[in-house]
């Protein structure tokens, strides 16, 4: 009798994950423009996504103070897809069909984005996706305001190679699509730069991995070959804290083996004592420590809104901020919230970003951003040690992968194609 339950647990657990709560059901009011917010408020991703929901509510409130858009107030419709990828698609459909939202801001993981993508294309709605991702995608209905690999990973590797003289690389990631694709691109890039295969170690761990002893000691071993070694980490959210704790405890300092992370920001460091981590790096397009007036204002207003001046700001928040303002500007330019009109009017729209410059929506539905490299400080913030001299355009199809290097995306008419093959001259030239 007691062995049976173990079997129940699996099936029932899966069934029960489906249970979720829909928050603030939309009230019918025709004189408002509805905006969908599709971020997990429960489950494993709630830790990262809840902040973005708050950011959206904050931005909408600010916009309404300015009088809304086209003379109408904005109304937020918040749903909770509960970190459950199929549920993301269901909730997206509900937002578009039942709540009739004009645009949706949401998703964090690539799995959730891939899950909702067909829904947005089928119903011809708009999704603003604010998180760094692996690229290799361009949809007419999605606007990618987070970093593509060339806006984060590649500049970070360049920095380490040039500034720290790194010759040996550990690519460590969580076992899912973003780290795997990013590492594939990075490996091709490093090989192209003359790094041999024996100087690259690739390691994957499950979600929420908490026992890092073996891997950290492997990294140490790999690093004792007489060449300067660095770790490029695409380790996801929750697994980072035990990883950094193990690094600190085993005495690996940033001066010896620096770790550059693409998923660790101010929010993730909140649960950590960062004193032993000083000098480890992160590559983003925004840090809270950016010295710009527009950033200082944003942080101040955010603290007032959230009524807690300890709350940090981070890169996906900035990407949400940029995406929201681009949408507002595009709607105002189009004079309507109709998806087709906004898709046409948003390309070329330029709005201020929080690092003192401005970002522009490109024809491939990715945006221009500066790339910043920061080092962790003992107060949980980052010191910016490098910034690209100009803005970097998001490259959706990586130039370093054989399947995608001939592809480009341009959603302007008459091309209006997300995967145009410049070698064959045809749209739809996806080779994967």
């Amino acid at each position, binding site marked *: 009798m007691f062995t049976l339950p173990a079997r129940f647990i699996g099936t029932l657990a899966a069934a029960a994950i489906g249970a979720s709560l829909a928050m603030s059901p939309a009230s019918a009011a025709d004189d408002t423009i509805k905006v969908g917010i599709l971020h997990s408020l429960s489950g494993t991703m709630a830790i990262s996504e809840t902040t973005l929901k708050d950011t959206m509510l904050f931005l909408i409130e600010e916009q309404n103070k300015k009088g809304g858009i086209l003379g109408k107030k904005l109304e937020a419709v918040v749903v909770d897809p509960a970190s459950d990828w199929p549920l993301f698609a269901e909730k997206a459909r509900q937002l578009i069909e039942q709540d009739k939202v004009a645009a949706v801001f949401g998703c964090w993981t690539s799995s959730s984005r891939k899950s909702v993508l067909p829904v947005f294309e089928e119903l011809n709605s708009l999704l603003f996706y604010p998180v760094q991702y692996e690229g290799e995608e361009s949809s007419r209905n999605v606007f990618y305001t987070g970093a593509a690999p060339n806006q984060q990973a590649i500049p970070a590797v360049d920095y380490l190679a040039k500034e720290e003289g790194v010759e040996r690389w550990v690519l460590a990631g969580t076992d899912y699509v973003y780290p795997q694709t990013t590492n594939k691109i990075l490996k091709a890039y490093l090989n192209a730069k003359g790094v041999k295969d024996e100087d690259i170690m690739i390691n994957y761990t499950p979600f929420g991995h908490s026992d890092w002893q073996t891997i950290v*000691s492997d990294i140490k071993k790999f690093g004792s070959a*007489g060449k300067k070694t660095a770790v490029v980490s695409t380790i996801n959210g929750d697994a980072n804290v035990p990883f950094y704790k193990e690094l600190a405890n085993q005495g690996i300092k940033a001066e010896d083996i620096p770790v550059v992370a693409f998923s660790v920001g101010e929010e993730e460091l909140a649960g950590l004592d960062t004193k032993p981590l000083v000098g480890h790096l992160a590559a983003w397009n925004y840090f809270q420590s950016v010295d710009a007036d527009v950033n200082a204002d944003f942080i101040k207003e955010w603290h007032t809104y959230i009524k807690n001046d300890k709350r940090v700001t981070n890169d996906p928040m900035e990407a949400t901020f940029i995406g929201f303002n681009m949408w507002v500007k595009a709607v105002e330019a189009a004079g309507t919230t109709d998806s087709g009109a906004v898709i046409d009017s948003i390309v070329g729209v330029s709005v201020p970003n929080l690092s003192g410059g401005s970002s522009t929506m490109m024809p491939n539905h990715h945006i221009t951003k500066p790339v910043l490299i920061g080092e962790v400080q003992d107060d949980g913030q980052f010191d910016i040690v490098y910034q690209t001299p100009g803005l970097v355009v998001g490259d959706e199809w990586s130039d370093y992968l054989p399947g995608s290097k001939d592809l480009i995306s341009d959603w302007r008419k008459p091309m209006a194609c997300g995967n145009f093959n410049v070698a064959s001259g045809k749209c739809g030239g996806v080779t994967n």
Partner: protein
Amino acid sequence: MQFIRLLSAIFLMLGILHHAANAQTVDDATLRPLVQALAGENFDNTTKAISDLVKTGDPRVSSLLNALGGGDLYVSKADKTVFLGKRQGSDYAATDPVTGATLAPVPRSAAEKIKVNNRLRREISAAIGGLTLMSENAGERRSAAEAILKSRDPESIPLLDRAIAAENDPSIKALMSQAKAAAVLNSGSPDDAKIAAIAEVSGGNSRDALGLLTPLEGAEGPVGDAARAAISSINSELAIWNAVQNIVYGLSLGSVLLLAAIGLAITFGVMGVINMAHGEMVMIGAYTTFVVQQIIRTTAPGIFDYSLLIALPAAFMASGAIGVLIERSVIRFLYGRPLETLLATWGISLVLQQAIRSWFGASNVQVGNPSWMAGSFDLGPLTLTWSRLWIIVFALSVFAILQLVLKKTMLGLRMRAVTQNRRMAASMGIRTPWVDALTFGLGSGIAGIAGVALSQIDNVSPNLGQGYIIDSFMVVVFGGVGNLWGTLVGAMSLGIANKFLEPFAGAVLGKILVLVLIILFIQKRPRGLFALKGRAIEA
């Protein structure tokens, strides 16, 4: 005497033949522009400024560089003067870096920290290493030797010779010899000196040695031969240590599994309640630790090192009380209906998670490590962390105490009686509902103290428990339901199996393999490793 030693060291390193009176200190007017240059436009300028400062040989330089490395040097935005700052509310308490005179406080917004990156930090520690190799303080001399061991600067060889001759502490002396050997290998020294250095290096930490010797592997002649021989002997030694490492890491993982599962071994194993909210009891224990630490931080920061000891009973009480509450309000109505219990406790786990999320927020909270839990020590080439070691000790003591409670106390006796034959126990006058509630409370309370330990190595977030619930059930089912020894052996063998598989199969496949092995094992022995025998279990 010490001061003169320090000075002579500086002379030697710089090869400057000044009068003692001249070199003792450069005057403030000379030093100031050099300090000012630290706030250079880019890191290259700062690097140059550091080496200029070191060349002055002034004794103030080492503390200045320390301040720079620690991020305590600021430059005011208005007149670009460099000052030593300390945060004080919305101002920096400012000191002149050259004279040490107190300056007027500078508002935080009017000053900028002089940034350092990893490369600069390395430069700084190498420079300080050169300056403090003859220091009076043993700790400073040790870190100076470590810094040179890392930088392998050939120019420090004569300085190291002097330091080795003057050193009295054998362990620091050994470290200095290592540093010298490393520098020799990095220099253009003659072959016989290098071969001697290879022998010296091979005697030290084998992992560091490997890092020093691998670049010489391809070298021609006797140096290359010596390096290759040393590398192969180090590698064969490391292979043995690897097996030791897997066992130790396996025990550590096993002890974490044991902690997570041992409470479940009571509620599920002894009582037969499928408690899906078990992970949340662990999580509540971890949050109790957080709350206890918060209180200590604000009221009595001096006793922070004891915070975990204080958190242990608190977490036991908090999780135990919630456990009793759950048992009294929900589970007791569901005895004998495993499916309903499972669903109900699953629901409770969601409620508890969301409650913690609304209360403390969705982000991780920061639980600090007391000083005795931080850091590591070396066992041969292995690095063992104190936190992991303490958790092994802690898990085993929890196990021992629990065994004592079950075997030697009245409550334990009653618990066993009720488990084995409920009706008979009731007939003997045992209030079985109370025993049920207390047993469930005990299991939950132990999950709570597991949370105190896990807060030291894992995230403290509302999801903490979810990561452990599947593993806990796996351990209990594998070890044999209803048997604490089974839980112990089950946890340890799963931990060690995992760690032996991980290097070959990777962490992901390793976990899958372990799961497959357990499924096969359960097919063969449905009652797990240590099955309870007798009629009682069939009831």
